[in-house]
């Protein structure tokens, strides 16, 4: 049901220490945001896509499909930043007159919007690299090592496992309802969805109760302990990240002085 999760487990980078991947993601993401330059952003897109596709073995088709997910927000957001209204048309590159006010795009606005567009795609590629190559369980392990509060990581771990149980449950109910025309009209649709959500809630509640009972019967004392995974010891990830990002920073500085 969650294809990103499936790819993360089967990627070629799944055995690498999650710290290295976090390091790569956050440093590259940080440089991309800091540079705020479309050349750097394009380079970041190439690096992140390359890392995920060549190193991680993720099909490029999947990566491209995922880039479409935030497009609605991106297009709406960028357009609303680029388009301005003013009483006179003199500032604008292109403008239309609507009821006495000019609505249009200034040249600096267009440049900023273009920069933002590419920058956002660059940052999203970094995020996708992380989510397509790092299983959540590894990420939780890394968070534990980074001293994130125990309660938080534990809740996260439990929620992660329950998501799949509840998703399957709601999927079954949805199929059952729609095969009985439960979503054929708007009003039955609302009624069916309310029935689904409330049944899911009560079901989740009972499941959690049963789960607690069965855990307690096996000696649960408020903590689920698992052995940390052992990872590939190579440090290549840190070195590559550092070299690539120093190059990116130098390019960014050089571009600024041009």
């Amino acid at each position, binding site marked *: 049901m969650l294809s990103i999760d499936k790819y993360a487990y089967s990627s070629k980078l799944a055995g690498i220490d999650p710290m290295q991947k976090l390091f790569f993601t956050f440093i590259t993401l940080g440089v991309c945001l800091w540079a705020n330059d479309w050349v750097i952003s394009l380079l970041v897109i190439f690096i992140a896509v390359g890392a995920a596709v060549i190193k991680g073995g993720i099909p490029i088709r999947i990566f491209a499909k995922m880039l479409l997910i935030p497009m609605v927000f991106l297009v709406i957001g960028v357009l609303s930043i680029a388009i301005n209204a003013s009483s006179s048309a003199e500032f604008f590159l292109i403008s239309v007159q609507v009821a006495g006010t000019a609505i249009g795009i200034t040249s600096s606005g267009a440049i900023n919007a273009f920069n933002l567009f590419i920058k956002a795609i660059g940052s999203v590629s970094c995020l996708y690299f992380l989510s397509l190559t790092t299983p959540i369980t590894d990420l939780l392990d890394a968070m534990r090592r980074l001293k994130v509060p125990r309660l938080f990581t534990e809740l996260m771990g439990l929620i992660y496992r329950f998501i799949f*149980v509840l998703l399957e449950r709601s999927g079954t109910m949805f199929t059952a309802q729609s095969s009985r025309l439960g979503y054929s009209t708007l009003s039955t649709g609302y009624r069916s969805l309310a029935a689904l959500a409330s049944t899911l809630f009560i079901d989740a509640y009972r499941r959690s109760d049963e789960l607690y009972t069965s855990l307690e019967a096996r000696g649960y004392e408020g903590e689920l302990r698992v052995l940390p995974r052992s990872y590939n010891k190579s440090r290549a990830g840190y070195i590559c990240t550092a070299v690539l990002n120093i190059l990116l920073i130098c390019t960014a500085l050089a571009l600024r002085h041009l």
Partner: protein
Amino acid sequence: MSKRFQLAIGLALMLILIPVSASAMHIMEGFLPPVWCISWGALTIPFIVMGLFSINKTVRENPRLKILIAMAGAFAFVLSALKIPSVTGSCSHPTGVGLGAILFGPSAMSVLGLIVLLFQALLLAHGGLTTLGANTFSMAVVGPLAAYFIFRLVKKAGGPQWLAVFLGAALGDLLTYVTTSVQLALAFPAEIGGFGASLAKFTGIFAVTQIPLAISEGILTVLIFNAIAAYGKDELKALKLFSPGGANHAK
């Protein structure tokens, strides 16, 4: 028509026709400048710490509730993945902000909301890591607090329960989007007119898309809440433990 050409047309059509959904309103990765990422993150941390302390206290008194809180988080995630049927045929997703706040209380919701947003960013590619602070502030702090207090206020004023739930969920939803608009306007003040003009632009766009969504979310929350109140009385009673004043006000 060559296959490549068909694909290009398909992609173009997809871009145009993708329905604007509630989840499209998470601020995406890389959209906010670093200053705002850090500021909103810092502003959110106290609420998360408070939430963690409150959950910790509840769990220490009643260890059974830890599993229940986790189940509630997973429920919120799955709820946000469901589709609300809508008139125009486009789909939208419930945010679950109102329902969660009324059932589990705003302090637990801040932590659960953060975790749900993190999973949405990692597993569904909605939202992002650097914008997590801003998104958590609008969806897991402002939204639930507003929904909870509106719910309590209407109940105290003697309004019927359905109205309290409806207003809580719908207004909680709307305030979430107003917060998102403020965040975007602060980060991107308009060249002409500054913050005010920018806020007007963003709220204008959100108003068109989000007011119908907030109303349908309100209706849906009332229906869900009534069903839970009818079939899950015992469960609601147990929820009293971690949402004083919320669920136990339900009949």
